[in-house]
């Protein structure tokens, strides 16, 4: 018995994907090179807007804190876990810049900007979620950053996962 048809069923889609990838990748890389800087600046500006809005909602003070709650004497009605996360990656163009910067060592500004944006975004999502769930304050905020490369080091995906969580409290 020969199983050549299995090879075709498995191989044909992979081959088709390979062909599409080799055609699409250079175009996408060009697109990334042209737009990614502007997109990064734009999403930074959008994030600052949302931060100002939630700052206004909480009357000028940031509701997130890493205090453990010993300063609260009385009046807490309810508490519960609040969390938010984001998976964020630099574009292929930014990865190339980072790679070049890595050759010379020192400060790698582009990765710093990408990770700082991801972290600020996760914290802002935490603020928005606490607002929608009706918490007044968040205590003991922790921020975890995990590398997100599902295929190991050689994976085609370069991204970080930022996970922010804390304990929401509601005052009665």
């Amino acid at each position, binding site marked *: 018995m020969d199983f050549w048809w299995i090879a075709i069923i498995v191989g044909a889609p992979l081959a088709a994907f390979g062909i599409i990838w080799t055609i699409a990748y250079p175009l996408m890389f060009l697109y990334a090179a042209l737009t990614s800087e502007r997109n990064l600046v734009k999403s930074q500006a959008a994030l600052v807007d949302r931060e100002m809005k939630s700052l206004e909602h909480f009357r000028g003070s940031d509701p997130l804190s890493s205090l453990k709650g010993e300063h609260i004497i009385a009046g807490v009605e309810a508490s*519960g876990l609040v969390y938010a996360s984001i998976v964020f990656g630099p574009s292929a163009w930014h990865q190339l810049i980072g790679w070049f910067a890595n050759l010379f060592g020192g400060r790698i500004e582009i990765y710093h900007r990408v990770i700082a944006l991801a972290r600020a975004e996760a914290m802002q999502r935490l603020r928005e979620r606490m607002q929608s769930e009706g918490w007044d304050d968040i205590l003991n905020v922790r921020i*975890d950053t995990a590398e997100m490369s599902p295929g190991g080091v050689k994976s085609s995906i370069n991204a970080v996962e930022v996970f922010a969580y804390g304990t929401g409290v509601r005052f009665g």
Partner: protein
Amino acid sequence: MEHIVSGIIVVNTETIAGKMIVQNLGVVGGSTVRAKHFGKDIFASLKNVVGGELKAYTELLEESRNEAIGRMVSDAVARGANAVVNVRFATSAISAGAAELFAYGTAVKVE
């Protein structure tokens, strides 16, 4: 959060403000291993060329975390606890495309 957990307090602080811990029922944990659909993996790697948020992965991790917390809470309920304190999370990439999410904490009885 309240949609996953009903009638049980889950916090990541050591104490619960306004409540007193009367009994320690041990460490409880819940974990889940999830992998994304092959097609969505491909889309994520395409999106990664352009940069920005990979929504498919954000959603995957969000769902998995909800499930891990749900399992931790049902473990706590089985021990007769009414709260879980000092909750922590751990993430590990177990193999290509699969992620393990682990949530653990201390099950306690509060008054």
